[in-house]
């Protein structure tokens, strides 16, 4: 009897470790900035792409309507793919599309917009990627649907036809 205690204990300990690791895997462990949980857009100052003026983030999405904030960059290949969808969506009158130019060279970004068209009403110029972090973004491309200064839906990764349909449903 005595020499059975050890194997059982060891097995038990390892089962415990297994369960803990297993549970650890279930939670997403990607560091999520605090802001993403309470959806309110935090206040921070941003620089605008063309005019170069500095304004407060809360002044951008202040109107009582839907906004789409698209985080993009000229070096990001998936951004290129989703861009045509944004060009389509901009025809919809119910929504305003804003861009956040993430860690980009201004000249490259301008060429990008010249080639593929500019669906953005305003563009935030985020050369250090700080604004994107404050908004709780994971990377590029990423798109937020915003209403009354609150993020109501996040699209991580490039938009596709389905997500565009979903957005159209939401803003009806």
């Amino acid at each position, binding site marked *: 009897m005595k020499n059975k205690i*050890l*194997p059982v204990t*060891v*097995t038990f300990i*390892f089962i415990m470790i*297994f369960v*803990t*690791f*297993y*549970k*650890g*895997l*279930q*939670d*997403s*462990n*990607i*560091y999520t900035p605090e802001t993403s949980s309470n959806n309110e857009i935090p206040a921070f100052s941003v620089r605008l792409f063309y005019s170069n003026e500095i304004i407060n983030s809360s002044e951008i999405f202040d109107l009582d309507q839907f906004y789409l904030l698209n985080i993009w*960059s000229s*070096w990001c*290949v998936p951004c290129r793919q989703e861009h045509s969808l944004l060009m389509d969506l901009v025809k919809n009158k119910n929504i305003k599309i804003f861009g956040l130019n993430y*860690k*980009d*060279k201004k000249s490259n970004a301008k060429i990008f917009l010249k080639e593929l068209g500019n669906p953005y009403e305003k563009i935030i110029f985020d050369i*250090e990627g700080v604004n994107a972090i404050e908004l709780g973004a994971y990377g590029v491309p990423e798109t937020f649907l915003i209403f009354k200064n609150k993020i109501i839906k996040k699209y991580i990764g490039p938009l596709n036809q389905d997500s565009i349909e979903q957005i159209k449903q939401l803003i009806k």
Partner: protein
Amino acid sequence: MLYSVIGYYSLILGLLSAIILIYFSIKNFQNSELLDTNILSFSFLQFFLVVISFLCLILSFVLSDFSNETVFNNSHTTKPLFYKISGTWGNHEGSLLLWLLVLTLFILLFLIKTKNQTIKYKILTLVFQQIIIIGFFIFLIKTSNPFNYLFPVPEEGLGLNPILQDPALAIHPPILYLGYVGSSIIFSSSLAATSLNMISSGWASHIKKWVLISWIFLTLGILLGSIWAYYELGWGGFWFWDPVENVSLMPWLALTTLLHCILVLEKKHILTSWVIILSIATFTLSMSGTFLVRSGILNSVHTFANDPERGLFILIFLFSLIFLSIFIFFFFHKTNNKDSSSLFWLSKETSIIANNWFMMYFLSVVLIGTIYPIFLDVLSSQKISVGPPFYHKLIIPFLIPFLLIMAIGPKLGWIKSKLLEKNHLILFLIISILISAIIVINFNSNFLLNTILVSCALYLFIVTLRESFNKKYKNISQNISHIGFSLLILSILLNNLSSSEIITNLKVGETFEANKTKIIFKSINQKEEKNYKSIKGTFIIENIDGIKNKMYPELRIYNQPNIVTSEADIKTTLMSDKFIVINLVKNQEYFNVRYQVKPFMLWIWLSVVLICFGGSMSFFKKKYEK
């Protein structure tokens, strides 16, 4: 495109040959007079298939074939050829393929090189190894296929993280993997030996070569990783107790302990349980390293891919192996009751056992520091991170007895002995305490602790050095490794004691004066390179004697992906390193300048090389004797 297809199907055929191998092994195991030639040829075939698959991936990288998802994610046409090739194993999928390559290579070598052991033992080792190999094949094919096809074919890739574009890091993973995977052979063969109840001195001297070879590669791999962190990350340190670093340190501690246990087992039939448990621990720690790094369960500066599905697979696989080994250990291993009773307190083996316990203690400190945050997160959803102070506080005090035992232990004989040359040992101890006190008194830091630490390391150095002259060539490899270790501890201590740092913000043309040094920011140059833009500053460092040094720290702005890295300019001399790094300050013409003088940096690298050198000498020496 073509290469992806060839690579993918070679992987599937490799998996098939693993299953065939197990079938032949079971057949051969029942009547085991001769090793079935099919086993050897299929092992070779399997290795060959994995080599083909690996070459295909390299070719896809070289040709920038962006229809391959792995290439698309990690390469770019403008990247230099060297980094295109090293990009093959710089990512999750490629690195697993490399694991598999080394796994199959090692089992093939094992089958060819093992001559004096029974056929049953060889076959059983092969079976255990094939179980591991099958696990990796399925993992690779199911969750992280390196040959995924992309359509439409993108025109350009996303690029390799510039931080990974460094020569030391390009060869770091393969070397480290040789060490990790080498431990798989130790794992399989110790399980095989346990089941056949043949853990003995003969087995110990047979497996010792494998332990040594993995140990050498693991040590070198850790060294390269550390050199990379020092030169590339630009944080001005060589070890950060980062989870990913710890994960490579843990198997090293287990393997080092195992090496010493094997040495004892070779001479005397004790410590069998130690050997088995450590063999299992070394490999499972390497595997859990892969799990922790690859599943994204850890938050670390160099976290790689985050994919829970992969994590789940490794987790289940890892624990199946653990439960299998627990079962074999408790079911087959018969402990020898004479084991501990025959130990005399003053003998070589007692000192080895004592230090083994210290090593186990260090191992558990690192283990707890690494996985405790995960446990806390799961059980109470608190996020903490464990930093260097934790490790320093818990490890450093115990280095004192550890170093002392390490100095005296080798002087003792096996089984039972008297302490010879007592006077010499005491004299050396006094000398080292005096020397260290003189050294340490110059620095205004914790005098007592530092003196004791430095003198212990110095003591180990002097005693070992004298021994290597005294008994000529008796155990020179051990002496070299131990001298290397004492030098390592010494240089780390002195490095910590006498490093100095200046941090300031400077504009071009400005001068910063500290009490001993003057930093002049001369000019700045911009240049376009192949895949990045370089901003190079010219600094003149003038020290108190009026000696001027020019230094050129650099900022690199990579275009694919868009990342800024700072390349420190490091002037290495024998006695100290001068280290300068610049960073951009937000929206201003100022640069953040960090200048450090770090003595004995070179000695840290050299002493690790010395440790490895001792190991390789032992490896080759044993070969000649046979």
